């Protein structure tokens, strides 16, 4: 795992030394674009519209089903959530906000293998994008938060990410700001509190709908919207490549995810799942409610037990090593890929699936060698790049060029013998153990 250290600028260094929060610093803290600049970009990306209505193209019944009863969409709540999203004062040392790891200029993620938080500490998991996150049934790679509201509150109090000791301390960092007091009052009719912090950020995130891609125009009937190569990729996506079953895309669920958790064998060769499972059970034994939520959050980000995925949440044997099927929308600009960011290019992802993942005792049997040819892999990759929203076309082109160059020189996950079924996945494993 690569560890990169970013030097903090002088202001931030002062902040770290004194522990005093610094708002609106212009330097690239933890590699993120400056907050003010991100906000300017966001203005250009999001059109003015009535946030109480479903965005254009989204089924209004589906939209309504995504909004919780206690957090209806209002312009005031969205504005408050937006301000909080970019506010580094919510972190212990004033250097990290949501936008640090969910950066407007980097596909609303950070385009790093794993994310970096306060004190330059690195976590264990790749940051999912906030783009279209509202459509998921659960949040986080292991689904440990049932809603956007719950998700927003956890990184703030995680020791590696934003480092606050607890919710009230985070609120206190911003409650002294008169502007915030006014905004909380306008949004929720009460003084700033941690629950509403989560609600407001969620309301803002519900405006981040980015489903306007060449692929969408192709689905709507424009045969020239995507290349012939990508169209062949769409046929494969629904057929030989078997993507559609876990990455379904339709009017009711536009994301490209089945919202389920599958062990596809990423990094499985490095894990002894049995030992980790025993340790996890011991670590979580007797914990209930809030305590359990915190414990899982820590284990997921700070320890080897992170590899257990969904098992940490459910303790079902069937969930060992299982991670959520992530969205295929905008996937071109939200690399690196998989729960640990171990795959740098979409060609790597295709190689992984083409060989049937990494066999392990808990591998999902639906993952099997696909016998795709190189041309077919290129077609599915072309399709995936066509699913990026038009507003990110430049970034998409950049990423595609970068990934193509990388993939041309190395394909560390490729195993043609297994992909073409000349060698069987579990055969190699048995041989190894003899």
């Amino acid at each position, binding site marked *: 795992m690569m560890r990169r250290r970013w030097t903090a600028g002088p202001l931030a260094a002062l902040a770290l030394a004194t522990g005093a929060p610094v708002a609106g610093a212009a330097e690239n803290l933890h590699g993120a674009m400056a907050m003010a600049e991100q906000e300017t970009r966001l203005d250009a990306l999001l059109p003015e519209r009535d946030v109480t209505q479903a965005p254009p193209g989204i089924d209004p019944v589906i939209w309504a089903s995504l909004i919780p009863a206690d957090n209806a969409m209002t312009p005031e709540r969205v504005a408050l959530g937006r301000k909080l999203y970019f506010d580094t004062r919510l972190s212990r040392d004033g250097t990290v906000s949501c936008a640090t790891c969910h950066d407007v200029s980097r596909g609303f993620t950070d385009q790093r293998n794993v994310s970096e938080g306060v004190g330059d500490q690195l976590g264990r998991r790749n940051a999912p994008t906030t783009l279209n996150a509202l459509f998921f049934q659960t949040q986080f790679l292991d689904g440990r938060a049932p809603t956007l509201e719950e998700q927003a509150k956890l990184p703030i109090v995680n020791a590696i990410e934003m480092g606050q000791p607890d919710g009230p301390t985070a609120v206190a960092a911003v409650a002294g700001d008169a502007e915030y007091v006014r905004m909380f009052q306008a949004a929720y009719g009460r003084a700033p509190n941690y629950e509403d912090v989560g609600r407001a950020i969620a309301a803002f995130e519900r405006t981040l709908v980015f489903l306007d891609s060449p692929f969408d125009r192709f689905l709507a009937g424009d045969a020239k919207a995507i290349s012939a190569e990508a169209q062949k990729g769409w046929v494969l996506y*629904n*057929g*030989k490549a*078997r993507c*559609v*079953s876990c*990455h*379904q*895309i*339709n009017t*009711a*669920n536009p994301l490209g995810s*089945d919202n389920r958790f599958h062990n596809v064998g990423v990094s499985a060769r490095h894990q002894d799942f049995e030992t980790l499972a025993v340790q996890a059970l011991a670590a979580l034994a007797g914990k209930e409610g809030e305590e359990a939520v915190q414990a899982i959050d820590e284990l997921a980000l700070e320890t080897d037990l992170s590899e257990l995925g969904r098992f940490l949440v459910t303790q079902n044997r069937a969930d060992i090593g299982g991670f959520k099927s992530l969205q295929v929308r905008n996937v071109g600009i939200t690399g690196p890929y998989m729960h640990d960011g171990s795959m740098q290019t979409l060609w790597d992802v295709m190689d992984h699936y083409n060989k049937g993942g990494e066999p392990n005792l808990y591998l999902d049997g639906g993952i099997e060698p696909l016998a795709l040819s190189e041309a077919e892999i290129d077609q599915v990759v072309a399709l995936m790049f066509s699913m990026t929203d038009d507003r990110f076309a430049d970034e998409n082109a950049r990423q595609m060029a970068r990934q193509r160059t990388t993939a041309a020189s190395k394909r560390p996950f490729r195993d043609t013998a297994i992909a073409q079924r000349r060698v069987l996945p579990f055969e190699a494993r048995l041989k190894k153990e003899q």
Partner: protein
Amino acid sequence: MRNPKRRGIVIGTTCGVALVVVLGLVTQGSRAVATDAGRDGTIEVALCDGETTVQVAQAGKPTAAEGRQIADELMAKWRASNPGTDWVAEERAKHKIVEPADNRDLVGRSQGQTYGRISEQDVVGWERATLAMATRGSQVFHSADELGSTIAVSCDMCHPDAANTHPETYPKFQVQLGRTVLLRDMINWCIEHPVRGAKLAEDDPKMRALEAYILAQRKGTPLEYGKH
């Protein structure tokens, strides 16, 4: 065709056994001609094609049931060397195929309307044609080759007698396909994935026959589209 009556006399005189088997065979629609008794005490009974034969022990007067058994053996042997002639019966001998609805009560009740004038022949013909389509479907359903499987898998491996195919639940949102589909789409998905063959065109006679067979097996089940 030889004179059966004369043969009967020959049987009677040469074997001293009144082969009532002749009677049994007549009711079955085939004829046997007994040849001379063998030295080991058996009789060779031949079919009217003069080629298909079975050996029958010479043990006194056979009953009608025994006669029927000999007739069955003869027919089975003849079918084995002449496959395909009554392919419907052949397939139905192997696999249960639910029969289509009985329309006999429509015969002769037309109130003078020409389009409503339904005859016995109509009803028999309809039944036969409908059953044939379902039976063809059974053939395809049970054959990895006909399905185009590259891994020698046929539908009946997971769906014996089309069990668990639930055609009454379509159209439905099929999770594996990620969208709302009809039965034929799911058949094609199964052909592509568990059976690992090439998809059939929707109007391919095999696809139509498969649908017919699957629907036939669920005759009488209430429709419940969308059910998971």
